[in-house]
């Protein structure tokens, strides 16, 4: 369960990254977080893993009060929330296997157990045959899968995917979305930030739309579409 309550984030420059966001995501949901670049999608993810603190408001992730979480507890939170970063954040001097086993290593899980788990996840994302390659030897889609595998390896309850189809062709994008849907079906809550309209339209999932740091719509695709139209008409009239 993720809950944001009147959350605002003002950056050092005085610009508001997010303004007064209130939303909640239930366990096991699949949610698209959409909006143009700079609308605050990544900021929401950063807030959820306490990479940044909100200027005001409360954030709850599972049972954690993220804002009041003591510093030494942050690693615990981050182990429970898997993140596929927009820039992937893979370590280029480590093999795919080593990259994916990193979260297990960090958690102090013994190497035999870790090996088993990494191989399991690699099979799940279809990268088993690439496990000894370095990131530079993989294609964009494969790298994306590797990043998803790393986010999955600790079996997190929540997976945040930031533009996982950003630089991919449509066929590969669909593969990634399919993979995320499969993961979601196994019970993991997924929030996927994207601006790929085709994907969002064709999957009948909840959509949270942001614009300039404000939450403009929250609902299923059709409803979002209708609401958006009404919003535009209202703006025109004004």
């Amino acid at each position, binding site marked *: 369960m993720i809950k944001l309550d009147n959350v605002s984030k003002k950056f050092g420059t005085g610009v508001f990254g997010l303004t007064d966001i209130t939303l909640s995501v239930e366990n096991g949901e699949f949610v698209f977080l959409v909006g143009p670049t700079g609308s605050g999608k990544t900021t929401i993810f950063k807030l959820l*893993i306490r*990479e940044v603190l909100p200027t005001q408001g409360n954030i709850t992730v599972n049972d954690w009060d993220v804002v009041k979480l003591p510093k*030494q507890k942050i*690693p*615990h*939170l*981050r*182990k429970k929330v898997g*993140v596929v*970063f927009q820039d992937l*954040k*893979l*370590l280029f*001097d480590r093999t795919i296997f080593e990259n994916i086993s*990193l*979260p297990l*290593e*960090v*958690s102090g899980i013994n190497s035999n157990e870790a090996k088993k788990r990494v191989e399991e996840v690699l099979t799940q994302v279809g990268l088993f045959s690439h496990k000894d390659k370095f990131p530079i030897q993989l294609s964009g889609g494969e790298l994306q899968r590797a990043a998803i595998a*790393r986010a999955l390896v*600790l079996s997190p309850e929540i997976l945040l995917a930031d533009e996982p189809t950003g630089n991919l062709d449509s066929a590969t994008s669909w593969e990634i979305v399919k993979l995320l849907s499969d993961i979601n079906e196994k019970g993991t809550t997924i929030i996927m930030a994207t601006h790929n309209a085709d994907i969002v339209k064709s999957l009948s999932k909840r959509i949270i739309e942001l614009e300039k740091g404000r939450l403009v719509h929250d609902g299923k695709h059709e409803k979002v579409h209708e609401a958006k139209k009404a919003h535009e008409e209202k703006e025109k009239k004004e």
Partner: protein
Amino acid sequence: MKHVKTTWTNIRRSPYQAFAAILIMMLTFLVISFFTFLIGGSSKIVNYFESKPQVTAFFKNEAKQSDINTLENDLQSSGKIASVKYVSKDEALKIYREQNKNDPLLLDLVTADILPASLEISSLKIEDLSSISDTLKKSPIVQEVVFQKDVVSTLTAWTSALRKIGLTLIVVLSLVSMFIMVTIIGIKISQKKDDIEIMRLIGATNWYIRWPFIFEGMFYGAIGAFLGWLISSLALWYATPLLESFLRGIPVLPVSPLVLFELLAVELVLAAILGAFSSFLAVLRYLK
């Protein structure tokens, strides 16, 4: 174990920085070892002289045995004397022969006639040495008085100067190596900034990130200390025959291997602490 593996990878990937860190540590511990030898050796020499008869009176050749006996008795009755030992010309020759047994040329040239008979006197209190020495100098049969207090005080002054110079050098070098280590570890942390950020984002604790750097500092310290110790010990071993003939009869050398290994153990511990502390400072400074 994982931390050690990461540490080793870090060291292997930046050999020049590792080399610089090890060199400065080596220099520091080379100086520490040398001054330990110097200070230890000179303290032993001072002790040796302090435990030896403190005034030696050499007699003129014409001195009669009866006069010498009278002088000896006078001294004994003064109540200031701990012991008096008479060394005759023949005994002096024997001692001389013993000291120079490896040098036949020196043995051939010297006979008992050349060497003076002497009295080796040690006092109960160090303050009485001057008055005893004065008494001896006044005696007409005495040729020369060697007052070992002078030797001891000169040596003591040298030893304390050595100690001061050594300590100053050691402190300065330790500080220099500490700052160099902080800089090197700092550079390494900056180089791995992205990796560190990623590790943090996937849930690594601060100490998980810090340990490899601390181990790295300890490694540089320990290797540097070992090399410094090795070089100084080899130098000591090489110089031992030369120094032994210079310090004729003073039992300072050879230094037992046990003492050298004890020194190594102490230096390794010190180096590991110095290395770990430097890395810790770097980690505090660059890994907030």
